[in-house]
């Protein structure tokens, strides 16, 4: 079977600062200037107070694994060669959740509420994914 290219994020104009930052090894999230709500994924309006007065802040990059799974069979075509890989929902210390991969560890060692910190994995020259490794 021909190798299937990894899906790259289908980005939006207002999310570009996020991907610009990951390319430089930084994890940024949004913060509402009016109500202080931390926001991920990047939005057009604050989901808490409807304000459009939103700014970018650098996140601590630390969090915990809310839940995870080790994909061992029947992955999407572009990920067949990656198995086993860990998909996880990470809760950042800032209170926001994001989907990511847990890397640089034995998949069997990952567990719920495990402390993790951000790392960066480039897919191509343009896009770098924020992934997480054990703290």
């Amino acid at each position, binding site marked *: 079977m021909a190798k299937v290219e990894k899906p790259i*994020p289908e980005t939006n104009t207002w999310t570009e600062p996020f991907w610009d930052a990951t390319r430089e090894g930084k994890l940024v999230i949004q913060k509402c200037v009016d109500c202080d709500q931390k926001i991920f*994924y990047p939005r057009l309006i604050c989901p808490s107070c409807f304000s459009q007065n939103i700014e970018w802040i650098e996140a601590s990059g630390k969090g915990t694994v809310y839940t995870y*799974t080790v994909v061992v*069979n*029947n992955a*999407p*075509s572009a990920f067949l060669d990656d198995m086993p890989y860990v*998909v*996880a929902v990470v809760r950042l210390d800032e209170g926001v959740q994001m989907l990511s991969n847990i890397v640089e560890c034995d998949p069997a060692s990952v567990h719920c509420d495990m402390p993790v910190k951000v790392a960066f994995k480039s897919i191509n020259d343009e896009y770098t994914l924020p992934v997480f490794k054990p703290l």
Partner: protein
Amino acid sequence: MSLKGKAAIIGIGEVPSGKFPERACIVSAVESAVMAVKEKKKKREDIDTIIPTGTVYNAQYNNEMVTGRIVEELGLSGVVKNNVSVFSGGSSSSTMLKVAAGLVNIGAAKYILCLHSEKLATGLSLQGGIDLFSTAGIAKEWEVPFGQHYSSVAALATQRYKYETGTTDEQLAAVCVSNRKWAELNPNAMFRKPLSIDEVMESKMLSTPLRSKMSNMLADGGSAFVVTSPERAAEHTDKPVYLLGSGSRATHFVYSQEPDLTRFAFADAAKDAFKEANLTPQDIDVMEIYDSYPVYQLIGFEESGFCKRGEGGQLFSEGKTWPGGKYPVTTNGGMLSQGHTGGGGGVALLVEAARQLMGKAGERQVKDASFAAYTSTGGTYFDSHVTILGTVVPD
């Protein structure tokens, strides 16, 4: 304002689910529709509105449903006033019923045919199905690049649910076994051979802790139901199935944004539905709980109030949800055994709720079923719906 008792299902239709390479998708649609329409003992020309729900195996076929193919196939050109698609993935059953009930209640339609047809087993390759469901409803910017797909989606909820409730893999497997017990009695089900907990536990691991026999199988299928006002319903049947209550919440688009992957919003949805119906979970005779994976069936069952959180696994393990048990749950076998026909998995389960209340469920009929609760959810479980149906309208 409430739709309680303001609409009724008077006809149902369904074709067998499974692998039917020779059966064109439109055949599933037309045969289901004919059954549902004929059952109301009235002329097909009375159908003035058709609500097809979405089909995902083929965009062209879906467009045909949106733009009136079923009107023409049923010979209703110039008769049907509105052909309008209502689609919310697996919860389309609930949203179609709600929209249909609203339309008949305000007099905008007299008889509404709601229908679904899908060809996910033979209209797609297995890998094609996996690839389709790694993007359908999964956010392309925030989840697809990390290898998220439907098995990992279900596994993420299962892992955390196990962690918080202490539910075991064997108890999750018991949900699959319970559904199979019902499917053994369902001629329209894809899988009817007896299934054991050991077989589930020995099946291939997909995404930990989710195994292949804890996963639904994509199927071809079709089902339909006809909705009208209670006054018109009385002209056709002595057992109309009344809409008594409905509650729902949409809680996320991106799966990882769900605040609680072990609960979703079924508790709030159930509270609204039971309040509207003026019933309690103890009044319900049959619980058609949306599955697709065992964890969601446990969550739907527990959060709707049929048992305490974390106690569902035990009830399923003890066989209390099997035919003849105290809690008849998901009596068509659910998507785990009847087969997953996309949005139709939910439609089939709603049709089953109506079938049980009409007393037409054959070998798997729950005796004297008067009230049914039905749950559904769409996409990556983006919404939580609870619907209460009954043969009478309580005060």
